[in-house]
């Protein structure tokens, strides 16, 4: 037996196994599609759609109880310690985004710009980074590489969507939510389908019966 019983690795694997079913991505994707659609089509209804997040948790738990726990069991994870390093990385990333935005704004000051210039580019950029914090935290906390990938895509999307002229301002935020939601939903459905095949409900080993 190795003298190193790597508890950190066991913890990481256990946490990873609790998020392998894709259900979180499905719910997050659905919610982002809803919010994005409302932002693009009916922006004045956005505050109401944001409050729908409070309905997500009970629905998510019901889905977990129905499809996940009977297959792989239930685990209550321990509350994590404060991730100082992750907070520092996040703060640095946000600061860089803020400095770049301010730099772009100052560069634009030479010409006459309406305040909407600030709205068109800054709001989507910051929204992209805010969207990225959730997946980034999942990646740091549970070792989910797809969390980092999603965080990078969300951050880039917030910058590229207005820069490439796809949309601007709050519409750009809506478009980003739609794209992020679609990506999350598709990846979640793929993972969930693979999960259902991998863990049939009666597949728990029972050689003693």
């Amino acid at each position, binding site marked *: 037996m190795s003298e190193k*019983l790597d508890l950190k690795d*066991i913890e990481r694997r*256990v946490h990873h*196994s609790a998020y392998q079913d894709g259900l979180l991505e499905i719910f997050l994707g659905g919610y982002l599609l809803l919010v994005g659609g409302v932002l693009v089509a009916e922006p004045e209804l956005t505050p109401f759609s944001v409050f729908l997040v409070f309905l997500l948790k009970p629905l998510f738990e019901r889905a977990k109880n129905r499809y996940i*726990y009977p297959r792989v*069991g*239930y*685990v209550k994870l321990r509350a994590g310690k404060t991730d100082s390093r992750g907070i520092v990385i996040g703060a640095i990333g946000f600061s860089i985004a803020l400095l770049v935005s301010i730099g772009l704004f100052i560069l634009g000051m030479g010409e006459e710009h309406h305040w909407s210039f600030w709205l068109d580019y800054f709001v989507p950029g910051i929204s992209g980074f805010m969207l990225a914090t959730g997946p980034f935290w999942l990646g740091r906390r549970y070792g989910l590489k797809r969390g980092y990938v999603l965080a990078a895509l969300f951050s880039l999307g917030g910058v590229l969507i207005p820069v490439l002229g796809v949309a601007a301002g709050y519409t750009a935020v809506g478009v980003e939510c739609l794209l992020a939601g679609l990506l999350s939903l598709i990846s979640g459905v793929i993972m969930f389908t693979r999960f259902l095949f991998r863990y049939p409900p009666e597949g728990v*080993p*029972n050689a003693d019966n």
Partner: protein
Amino acid sequence: MPTTDMDKNLRVIADIDPVVHQPARLMILAILYVVESADFVFLLRQTGLTRGNLSSHIGKLEAAGYLEVKKEFVGKIPRTLLSLTDEGREAFQTYRQSMIQVLEDLPG
């Protein structure tokens, strides 16, 4: 049984907790050590043990006072949760430290 002349290094080996020092039970303890609680099916999946085997080892750990079994209801569905007691956590930590010491002191 340890004698008064036993080398202190051998005494550490002799004092290893036999309840913990069993591969299946060590797996169960290691998994429960890093979580707050888990149910039977989760442990079954994580350890790869059979139902009977897992039940037997859980029984031994519970009898030793290292494991706590709680039954709760989630809606109408019963759920049995397993978690380490304080004694169980201490026993696992002591075992880890003992094994590190034993393996470091072994010749070779």
